């Protein structure tokens, strides 16, 4: 049984600290506290120490260094260990330097503005290089990667049918239900059909689809390309002579541009179906009347508006996703960051463009 009692004398000649038993990392906090409690001049007597590790040695050493404590009674191993850790006492910076608050805020703001600027220029540049690559592909259509594109069709389009269908169906019901509650007050619940028909065909169908595709496929594009960037696959492609824009970006863009209108159309149908079931069950309007009424109230231009916007949104989503993926550098953490940015950026751009389209189509008379 080792003598674990630690003693400290507070004599006339100053204090003596006598650690006993193990002087290791397990006891480090206690040891440090006990030493801090003793006054100078301090003597540390190591004669009762049975086991010491580098942390214990470090505590002895720093007391010796900072407070000029005298160390005695240590065996050869213990004094050796203290000497060894002393050799490693070089001023190592542990934390990055922090600047004062105001300066930091200003710097961050400046960096943010500069970042936003370079991102925008970068996005334009990326857009340009995809155009160049597409032109090259049109001139040499044999380099067209049919398999890759068909595979993307499946991932972006076919596999999204379920979730987009369900979402649109529910949105149709919600629009119908909320509309009916308000219009009932005026005895005008028949106009619920106008509401469902026009809002889903013209706006909601394609917008919700775009948001879903951005979340599903835009993020996947960024993550896939970002990971390929990390594992140097993209560099490998370049050295072999395969253009990553041709091989990775263009198939994804084509898939997104072609699949978006189809998905948007599907979404419109499902919303109308959801709305139809709602008005049938809740307002007692039979399906046949519902369809007739839809034909009367939805102008063809509404459908054109929805379907014209869809490929543009698809393009924006693929552009932002692939661009952010290509920007990944260094760590795996960046893949996550860039994926988030891709989704945020594409939804943001989609909504801005949607506003532009709304004004544009109204002003050309497609009301």
């Amino acid at each position, binding site marked *: 049984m080792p003598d674990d009692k630690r003693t400290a004398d507070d004599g006339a000649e100053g204090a003596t600290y006598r650690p006993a038993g193990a002087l290791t*990392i*397990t006891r480090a*906090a206690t040891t440090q506290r006990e030493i801090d409690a003793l006054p100078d001049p301090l003597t540390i007597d190591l004669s009762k120490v049975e086991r010491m590790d580098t942390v214990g040695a470090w505590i002895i050493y720093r007391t010796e260094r900072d407070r000029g404590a005298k160390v005695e009674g240590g065996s050869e191993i213990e004094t050796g260990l203290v000497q060894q850790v002393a050799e490693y006492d070089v001023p190592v910076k542990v934390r990055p330097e922090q600047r004062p608050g105001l300066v930091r805020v200003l710097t961050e703001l400046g960096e943010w503005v500069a970042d936003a600027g370079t991102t925008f220029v970068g996005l334009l540049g990326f857009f340009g290089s995809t155009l160049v690559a597409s032109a090259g592909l049109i001139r040499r259509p044999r380099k067209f990667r049919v398999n890759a594109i068909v595979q993307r069709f499946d991932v972006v389009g076919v596999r999204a049918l379920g979730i987009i269908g369900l979402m649109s169906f529910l949105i149709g019901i919600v629009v119908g239900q909320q509309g009916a509650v308000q219009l009932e007050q005026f005895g005008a619940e028949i106009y619920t059909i106008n509401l469902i028909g026009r809002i889903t065909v013209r706006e909601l169908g394609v917008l919700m689809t775009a948001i879903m595709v951005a979340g599903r496929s835009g993020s996947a594009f960024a993550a896939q390309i970002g990971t390929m960037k990390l594992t140097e696959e993209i560099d490998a492609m370049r050295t072999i002579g395969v253009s990553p824009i041709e091989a990775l970006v263009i198939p994804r863009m084509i898939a997104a541009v072609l699949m978006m209108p189809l998905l948007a159309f599907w979404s419109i149908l499902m919303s109308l179906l959801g709305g139809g079931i709602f008005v049938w069950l809740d307002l007692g309007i039979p399906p046949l009347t519902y369809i007739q009424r839809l034909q009367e109230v939805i102008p063809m231009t509404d459908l054109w508006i929805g379907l014209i916007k869809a490929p543009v949104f698809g393009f924006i989503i693929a552009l932002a996703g692939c661009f952010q993926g290509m920007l990944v550098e260094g760590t795996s953490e960046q893949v996550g960051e860039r994926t988030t940015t891709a989704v945020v950026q594409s939804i943001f751009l989609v909504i801005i463009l949607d506003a532009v389209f709304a004004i544009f189509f109204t002003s050309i008379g497609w009301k």
Partner: protein
Amino acid sequence: MTDKPLICVRGLRNSFGEQVVHENLDLTVNRGEILGVVGGSGTGKSVLMRSIIGLQKPDSGVVEVLGENMLDRAEDEAKNIRRRWGILFQNGALFSTLTVAENVEVPIREYFPHLTPPLLDEIASYKIAMAGLPPDAGPKLPSELSGGMTKRAGLARALAMDPELLFLDEPTSGLDPIAAAGFDELIRSLQQRLDLTVFLITHDLDSLYAICDRVAVLADHRVIAVGTIPELLALDHPWIQEYFNGPRGRAAADTAEEHVKA
């Protein structure tokens, strides 16, 4: 207690689906030695290490580390053993969101949350210096480090808790010969100073000659031989002969000899 082996593996069997990696594998690591583990690609060196440290659950067999059975342990008991070893993964496995110094502090904070921040920082800094990193490496993020520095930072983290046992998975792979030799020397000197036992997986023949006390050879799903290099050379297993007497093996042996003469 001192004479008991630090790692004792008996009858280990590991398999992934149909593919058997280890079958009836026995291995003993004694206190205070540097044991090199060699074997061709796919012989399960890393899997062996992962079964010893509990990341891979073997199909059957006994694994004892520091005299304690490692299989089917309760989590809090296993924790007591875990703090007595340090592991350097092949690619460093540094936490990418933390700086080098914070990486070193992670295990210490986990087990000893009561240490005061200044003391913690000082401990981290001497560990960083001990691993041979320059003083300005502390606040850097892992992504800013070179390959050699990443390994050293990983070593600093592995040494954070003053372990008795150190696992190194190919510490010199990916380093240039000068950095690799420097790393070998660092491991040897730390092993002597801190009285470490080292389990070293390596492909590097120079490392084997320079720092290993004994070498275990993995082939045919088990450890076919353990011993000093001269002892292994006396065996006539084809793989061992080819490994140590191939052109690279002989070159490494010559270098080691010159080193001894000089």
